[in-house]
């Protein structure tokens, strides 16, 4: 496992982001699976190598930054890469990553354009924002991507400044920032627009 990035996103909220590349051999995964078995991450997903590798990294990371006893987290995976947001303070935070060159079908691009005609950004960036909303529990009802595509759930996205967006769902407001890093788009969504991280 290679840690490509580890940085603080928001000074006041003790929020960090990591990007890792999962490169593991079978023996290493078995050892980690046993380790995970005795932690709070033991569940039916323990059969998945991706789950084991990412949670093992998360535990080590939380111990490294001294927040193991109390932390929240959010994962996103894209191919061999995983991103994790971790904080000892924040409850509502999310991350989504996708390769910059991720292929979208013509019909999906068209649908995104129809839904968000004012946004002058690549369609994949809009999808990143939407995907990050799905992981947040502050919205009621929760965000459902298929309902957005079929006009059954309305979401307003406004670009505040370059790569920072104000997002409103059922009168609940959050803020997203999209970073570009090593061939990936990284979208972080928070309740504050204080994004101290510069990549």
């Amino acid at each position, binding site marked *: 496992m290679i840690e490509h990035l580890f940085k603080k996103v928001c000074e006041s909220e003790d929020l960090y982001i990591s990007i890792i590349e999962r490169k593991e051999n079978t023996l290493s995964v078995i050892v980690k699976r046993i380790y995970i078995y005795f932690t709070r991450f033991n569940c039916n997903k323990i059969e998945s190598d991706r789950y084991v590798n990412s949670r093992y990294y998360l535990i080590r990371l939380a111990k490294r930054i001294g927040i193991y006893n109390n932390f929240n987290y959010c994962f996103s*995976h894209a191919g061999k890469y995983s991103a994790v947001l971790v904080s000892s303070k924040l409850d509502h935070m999310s991350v989504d990553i996708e390769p910059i060159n991720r*292929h979208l079908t013509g019909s*999906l691009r068209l649908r995104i354009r129809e839904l968000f005609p004012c946004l002058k950004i690549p369609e994949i960036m809009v999808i990143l924002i939407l995907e990050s909303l799905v992981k947040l529990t502050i919205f009621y009802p929760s965000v459902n991507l298929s309902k957005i595509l079929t006009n059954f759930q309305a979401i307003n996205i406004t670009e505040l400044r370059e790569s920072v967006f104000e997002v409103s769902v059922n009168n609940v407001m959050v803020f997203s920032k999209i970073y570009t890093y090593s061939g990936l788009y990284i979208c972080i969504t928070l309740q504050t627009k204080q994004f101290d991280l510069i990549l």
Partner: protein
Amino acid sequence: MDEKFIKLVSEALEININDLQGDLELDPEDNWDSVSILSTISEIDAQYGIQLDGTELANCRKISDIFALIKKDIN
């Protein structure tokens, strides 16, 4: 599964149409992630005029399961 559906899956999952002869397995950790599901929803809407539920689609484990959802909706 008809030719129109195979072409749709090929486009949505970025798989060469020649590799779609059998009943392809859908792996949520590989070829069946959220973007693939969104692409499939929008393609099915465009090609068949059917709006499938994302959760039902996410539970599909083979492309024949997707086709079954389409057929169910048409019938």
